[in-house]
């Protein structure tokens, strides 16, 4: 026991907070969205810029991880080729649930300008997507806004088992 007297009812002194489990779980989840680095093409540069000091993703708790096992969020930034499609599916499957996907840029949304035989016409043909960011390339502000919308979406959902695993098929 501390010898000095602490007035727990003063500002911030109370070591107990009363809240619902949903709220605290979602608060934790939405503010530590660790993102899988998935820069596939030029959009990846904007994604990296968002992570760097000027736009500073860390203040959202979004920290880029190089392993799907450690990440909650996959930011698909760039052109997905047909050759690569199976790997994005494998990496998505390796992420632990709950997991979210942001499709960043025209290429990831719809195939973009690459209306060719070698480009997947939208990552949502392979994995379920939560948020589509338009632009070629979207500016870092767009990505920040997208992450904030995703945080809002996470907070609006129930935590726990109520969240059904997303499956494309």
């Amino acid at each position, binding site marked *: 026991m501390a010898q000095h007297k602490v007035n727990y009812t003063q500002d911030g002194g109370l070591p107990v*907070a009363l*809240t619902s489990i949903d*709220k*605290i779980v*979602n*608060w934790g989840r939405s*503010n530590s969205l660790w993102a899988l680095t998935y820069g596939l093409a030029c959009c990846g540069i904007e994604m990296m810029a968002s992570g760097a000091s000027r736009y500073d993703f860390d203040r959202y708790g979004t920290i880029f991880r190089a392993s799907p096992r450690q990440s909650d969020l996959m930011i698909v930034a760039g052109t997905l080729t*047909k*050759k690569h*499609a*199976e790997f994005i*599916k494998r990496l998505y499957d390796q992420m632990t649930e709950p997991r979210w996907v942001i499709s960043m840029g*025209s290429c990831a949304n*719809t*195939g*973009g*300008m690459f*209306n*060719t*035989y*070698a480009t*997947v*016409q*939208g990552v949502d*043909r*392979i994995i379920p997507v939560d948020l589509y960011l338009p632009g070629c390339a979207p500016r870092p502000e767009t990505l920040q*806004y997208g992450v*904030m*919308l995703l945080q*809002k979406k996470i*907070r*609006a959902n129930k935590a726990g088992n109520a969240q059904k695993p997303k499956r*494309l*098929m």
Partner: protein
Amino acid sequence: MRAYTPKDDVQAKAYYTDRYYVAPQVPKSEVETDEVFAADLAAIKARFEVKEAYIQVEQMVIFINPHDIYGVLELMRDELAYTQLSEMSAIDWLAKDNTFEIFYQMLSMTKRKRIRVKFFINNGEAVDSVEKLFRSADWSEREMFDMFGIEANNHPFMKRILMPYDWQGHPLLKSYPLEGDEFAAWYEVDKIYGKEAREAIGPEIRDTARVDRYDSERFARLGFEVPKGTKITGDEPRNSQEYQEEGGVFLIKKYTKEASTIVDDPQR
């Protein structure tokens, strides 16, 4: 103005036709006008048959027999100082006379000259690999095989280089559609989910500009979002665009515009 040619059914033809204006060829000059090239050509002619030779844009172009290619390049590398193979690939002339034109772009750093060695092969024939002479031919020949289906004999690893190993078709052939054939269109679906998933996932939507505002399955109109699958009537209420929920979330302060500061100095 150029003469009008009927353009009906031009899309229906699989092969490229001269639908558009074709620029005139760059003029060709005699090999004798350049003494370095003339000496090189004489050295090659002494041992191999040269069908045609000319100078175009300060580069010599020679046409040889397909089976001579290894010998010609070896001679050029070892005796004529053309020590680099900067590029090699094929040109599809299948529509014209069922042949491929193969070219090898050679560079001599000491002479500061470039020679293009060319020959024709029929569809289905293979070329001799020059990978033993130039390491750069390794990947170039694999790419030629990948894109045109022309195999290189004696190549150490004759496999596709750009497309996946299980790909069907050779994309740089002029008969190959730009948007891919049936195999290409379903490649990723077939491979990952199997053919039976085709129906659930649906065909590729190639019109990137297509937005259906009444489609609430795949689109959300910004500011007028409705739950997924709702039938859109057009009088949806406007949703406010806010980053934070009203009333706040546990431990998170709501952002208010009044409380924010605007940074005027970009160098801050």
